[in-house]
């Protein structure tokens, strides 16, 4: 496979001030993307993931029920996990069974497959500061081996301040529908992820340090632009991709 094609994408940020500071359109959370039965107990992480994933499938005009999916997040269901850990150390702490099964990293992936009636493989990955880069690599490898199309969802809710002071915000999500190879009508084509340190614009550097999932920003910015030059794009401090627009 020479490249993978971006068929549709979307980004979501619940903080209005942060949204307004971005140079491209980013949506607020849309709770309507979660079926009513699942909505009431849905975590912020799940709302972020569903909002971006639904909008990306809409923009690509693809049915979510057919797409294998990869859910990537640095900290996953960290608010639910924090709540459980707080209870676990109290002598009389109560552990809710639903909070427990909703604390796994693949909570959003699992509910997505249930909500969309999607029986395709669903994965959940994490790679710290390289989470976005490894998510693109995983998408690349799946498409190169199996062909077809897939959905990649990257998201992080705010982390509890006690865990990593001054990090873990602002909450953000983005999602992409990719196809194997160069597909007519695609937005951009992305080459094989490679080692290398493409420049991260200074505007983003401090934000990416605070919230590693924001490493997606340069690629999102390019996908939103009309820039037609082939270029190397930052996906982490040690990984990059070549992006072209035909």
């Amino acid at each position, binding site marked *: *496979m020479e490249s993978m094609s971006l068929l549709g994408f979307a980004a979501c940020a619940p903080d209005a001030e942060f949204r307004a500071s971005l140079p491209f359109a980013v949506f607020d959370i849309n709770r309507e993307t979660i079926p009513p039965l699942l909505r009431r107990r849905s975590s912020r992480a799940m709302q972020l993931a569903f909002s971006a994933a639904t909008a990306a499938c809409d923009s690509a005009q693809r049915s979510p029920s057919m797409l294998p999916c990869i859910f990537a997040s*640095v*900290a*996953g269901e960290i608010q639910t*996990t924090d709540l*459980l*850990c*707080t209870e*676990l*150390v*109290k002598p009389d702490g109560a*552990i*809710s*069974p*639903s909070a*427990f*099964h909703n*604390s*796994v*990293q*693949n*909570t959003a*992936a*699992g*509910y997505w*497959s*249930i909500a*969309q*009636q*999607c*029986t*395709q*493989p*669903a*994965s*959940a*990955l*994490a*790679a*710290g*500061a*390289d*989470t976005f880069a*490894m998510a693109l*690599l*995983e998408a*690349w*490898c*799946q498409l*190169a*081996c*199996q062909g077809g199309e897939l959905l990649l969802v990257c998201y992080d809710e705010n*982390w509890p301040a*006690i*865990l*990593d002071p001054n*990090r873990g915000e602002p909450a953000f999500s983005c999602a992409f529908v990719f196809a194997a190879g160069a597909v007519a009508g695609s937005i951009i084509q992305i080459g*094989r*992820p490679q*080692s290398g340190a493409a420049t991260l614009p200074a505007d983003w550097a401090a934000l990416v340090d605070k919230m590693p999932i924001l490493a997606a920003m340069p690629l999102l910015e390019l996908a939103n632009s009309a820039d037609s030059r082939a270029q190397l794009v930052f996906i982490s401090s040690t990984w990059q991709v070549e992006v072209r627009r035909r």
Partner: protein
Amino acid sequence: MSSSPLLPPVAVTAYQCVSAGGDDVEALYASLIANQSCLKPLTLFDMPFATVVGEVTSVLPEIRASLKAYDCRNARLALKVLAQAGFRDQLLQAMAKHGANRIGLVLGTSTSGIYDSENAYARLLQDGVMPAEFHFQKVQTAQATAEFLQLELGLQGPCYAISTACSSSAKALGVAQRLIATAMCDAVLVAGVDSLCRLTLRGFNSLQLISPSACRPMDANRQGINIGEGAALLLLEKPSPENAGRPRLLAVGESSDAHHMSAPHPDGVGAATAMAHAMRLAGRNVDEVDYINLHATASSLNDLSEARAVVSLFPNPPPCSGVKGLLGHTLGAAGAVETIVSLLALERGFLPGTCGLQQPDPQCQFPVVAAPNLGLSPRLILSNAFGFGGNNASVLLEAA
């Protein structure tokens, strides 16, 4: 009729494991043959209910000073595996052969270093602040122990964690196969690591799934599951004449139930799809499978779902067994731990038993092996791992 595989196989050139079954694969093999449960009362921390667990009770090694920020029980379990029977030397040889930047690292874990996070939260409750030495991204997040292993070994390839609950490390094997198939890597170290912690013990207890005594997979009188811990490391390499004598990972089939967050599809539809996907990727037929290492947690819903999946896919099911009555359910590590159990079956010629099985559940209509069978040498083995979220993976292995 076999057809050509959709994905090239990879060689499993080295593997090692630390679990309740012992500190290395020799001890694990001896435990599998003895088939006496290794489940015992928990010593690591106090629990407000009775159960037995698969605990690693031997001394765990210290993390070196320069990597102290990564110190947690998960990292120590993984480090212990490196020290067994020349495993680290085998990795160093692979690094010399392929180059450190050509070797990837994929970790499967469910709860990462959360046992140590729980200890930090206890200090928070007591002191009002988290301990200064607590590093969230180097202990608790899912990739923490992957990063530790990468730095400990000096690997420089892609490094990430798959965290899909109890299918995590089975899926990590699939990731590794794809990294090699796409020539992103020449070799990948796959790790499945999960330690005992309060979260999973009390969590599964809140779901009323914990058995007070040693669990009995596929038994009519089963009472639930037991939690275990373990670390299993496997080195996968692209096939070459040099490793032609090593067993092969043929495929990892994957699917989603799309049914329920914590309960499997009652008819095992997703489980059957994952097994069928593995067979299709490898271009093999179900009648070629000699043995199935079942997920068989000993929860009624899981066992019956998996039994229906096997019967639906296999007109004549091969012998099947599950080892969680021996080792406990090692959660995110289970896929890798039980792949190693299956590799031992392939390489040493036996079928593992189902420790705890006394009276087979009449609803499980296929041959479940109770005592280890030393008279059969399987050549093609499926090993199942199913997790929360209806996340299914089935690992297909072949003898050299």
